[in-house]
């Protein structure tokens, strides 16, 4: 029998997955704006810029979702994590601010016929800073450096930096860089699509290498976490992530873009699920369990009472949004029906 607290932890993981697969692609757009290269450099930038436009705000609401679930349902974990991870979270926040503002400024500037290079730069830099910092913060909860005594955090201001979390931050970056070009393949055509296809395939290899690298790093630097990688539930997730990534790569090779898009999202979801499976039943590895961090039962009941109403309102609205802005990334152009 699955307990209410486990279900709530599931809702938290779902929020994190949604943020990674939607918000992540959004950050990835910024990363590939920086790394745009080749003869179609400008087209790459333009199409990424247009694709982010209508959806960036919604993509980032998932982060607020994660934060709210954390403090409503797991207030003790919220207090501990936000105390121990002050520095990376502040860095991520500064990045989120500059990125959002830079994007909005740039969009506004374009419409009024101005292009400001400084703003473009800060959009690009913050697109990398934020996923790196958030990736480090998320992996730090499994790194074993953050310790609690009587509910109070015992951690120095730099304890969140370790080989394990550095690789974790790079995985965060790689997830973003992986999703964006693959999502773009269904929204572009011709040579531009080939550009994104190649970039997606390279990023997939980078993500694969980094996640594989994290295993020996964990053995050396985060043994508690490494010990849980061998659990059956973790192994199942890892196997699913590996096969998801491989299938996606094949789909990209064979230019089955729509299926590749779904495969890429699933690969990221399984990667995060694997991390969560290893963490379970804790929220802060070895220090704070899901049950110990949970709010009183009436709060959990309230949480799950509101949830379906939210889904009823949000699911069709989100579908309408993504459906309206399907096809060509330029929202000013009518959606073209891409046959893929």
């Amino acid at each position, binding site marked *: 029998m699955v307990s209410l607290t486990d279900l709530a932890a599931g809702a938290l993981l779902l929020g994190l997955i949604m943020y990674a697969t939607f918000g992540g692609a959004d950050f990835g757009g910024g990363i590939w704006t920086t790394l745009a290269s080749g003869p179609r450099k400008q087209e790459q930038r333009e199409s990424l810029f247009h694709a982010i436009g*209508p959806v960036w705000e919604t993509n980032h609401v998932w982060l607020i979702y994660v934060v709210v679930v954390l403090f409503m349902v797991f207030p003790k974990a919220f207090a501990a994590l*936000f*105390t121990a991870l002050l520095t990376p979270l502040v860095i991520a926040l500064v990045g989120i601010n500059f990125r959002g503002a830079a994007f909005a400024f740039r969009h506004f500037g374009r*419409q009024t016929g101005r292009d400001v290079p400084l703003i473009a730069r800060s959009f690009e830099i913050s697109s990398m800073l934020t996923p790196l910092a958030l990736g480090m913060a998320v992996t730090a909860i499994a790194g074993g450096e953050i310790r609690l005594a009587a509910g109070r955090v015992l951690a120095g201001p730099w304890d969140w930096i370790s080989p394990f979390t550095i690789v974790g931050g790079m995985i965060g970056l790689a997830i973003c860089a992986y999703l964006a070009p693959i999502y773009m393949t269904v929204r572009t055509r011709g040579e531009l699509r080939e550009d994104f296809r190649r970039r997606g395939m390279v990023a997939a290899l980078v993500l694969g290498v980094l996640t594989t690298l994290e295993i020996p790093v964990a053995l050396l630097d985060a043994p508690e976490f490494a010990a849980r990688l061998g659990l059956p539930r973790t192994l199942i997730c890892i196997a699913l992530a590996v096969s998801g990534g491989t299938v996606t790569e094949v789909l990209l090779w064979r230019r089955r873009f729509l299926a590749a898009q779904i495969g890429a999202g699933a690969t990221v979801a399984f990667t995060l699920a694997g991390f969560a499976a290893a963490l379970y039943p804790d929220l802060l590895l070895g220090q704070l369990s899901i049950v110990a961090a949970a709010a009183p039962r009436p709060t959990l009941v309230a949480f799950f009472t509101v949830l379906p109403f939210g889904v009823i309102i949000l699911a069709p609205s989100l579908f*309408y949004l993504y459906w309206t802005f399907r096809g060509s990334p330029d929202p000013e152009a009518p959606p073209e029906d891409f046959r893929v």
Partner: protein
Amino acid sequence: MDNVLAARALMGLSLGFHIIYATIGIGLPLMLMIAEGIALRTGNELYRQMARRWIRPAGLLFAIGAVSGTVLSFELGLLWPRFMEFSGPMIGMPFWMEGYAFFTEAIFLALYIYGEQRLSRRALFLCTIPLTLSAALSAVFVISANSWMNTPAGFTLEGGILTGVSPLAAMLNPAFAHQAVHGTLAAYAATAFGMAGIYALAMLRRGATPYLKRALVLAMAVGTCSLPLMLVSGDWAAAFLARNQPAKLAAAEAHFETMAGAPLIVGGWPDPETGEVNFGFKVPKLLSLLAFKDPDGVVKGLNDYPPDERPDPRLVHPFFDLMVGSFFLMALAAAWFWWRTWRRKDVAANRRLLWFLVLASPFGLIALECGWLVTEFGRQPWIIQGVMKVGAGATPNESIGLVFAVFLVVYILLTGGLMKMLLQAEPPAVDSPAGREGRHG
């Protein structure tokens, strides 16, 4: 800087900044909905232009509102982890519902702003309805969390242990109703008067066009409708405070000694050392009358509280008076405007009136910020009235002063960038043929 002070300063800075954009984010959708609705019903293109011209600045302002809101959700944990550890189970629910409302708002805003080429006009209008509703609901839910801090409910404490948690009772705490009504309507008043000022300024500079005239009437209509409701809900708030948070009322009114037939003090500088108000203007018995509908009602004074449980009236009374004063300034502007409209139907010819509308335009937002300062400073030293003091809710982390400095720089850069973009751009109130708006980029 002391850590708790730094945490308070940062939270205050972030909220004060966010409130500006959140207010526009609540008020503007209503204006868009009305303008699009009229355009669809009457086929009058001017109303449609009015709405569509707000899209670009709206995109900018909403974006800043969204990121500054994200900062706040993080700061709850970064600055006040011990407060949130205690309160999360109770105030989590309104935040949870606010999350949905904000999500809905972001979706329909994106559809409205970016959807011009992909959606029908009817669909665009229909998008403004959930946009307006969810924006208002966001405000209502967030205010519920704040009102819980003023009148905590939905739990019992037994020897420091939290029991009997009821998130619903917490959400519907006693102060919720009046704060939600007062706070949400304030956003409508602030946005409408702000817009009226922009249109009035455009008339002064470029002369009155039919477009500007209609836009001004619409903005003034929305602003004026919210004013009497502000007065009624404000009176409701004062009466509520007199019974439930008398220390806050006393600080707002600079009222030191408990007495029957208390006077209302307008202006002046309260001195907590002597318990006197210097240079204030006293209206006999008015405070008792306003608080209890009885000129001889007994109004509790600040001196009834131990010194370490008194809010500082120097931080509350001036903001309270500025809030009330702003109301009367806007009411005067509205009265003049409608009186002229009714008498001669040519507002645009009276430059003095137009200048007065420009002058009054920021006071909606000023009043809103002041109202927020009154409710926050008036609750001091409590973070949860009677349950937890501010210092006990703060983070044990040191170096919050540095974080404050970082965000101060971030906000200065954001504000500077925003000003530069908005001021250099074509102001939305300018008349221009639709073709010039162009569809580049």
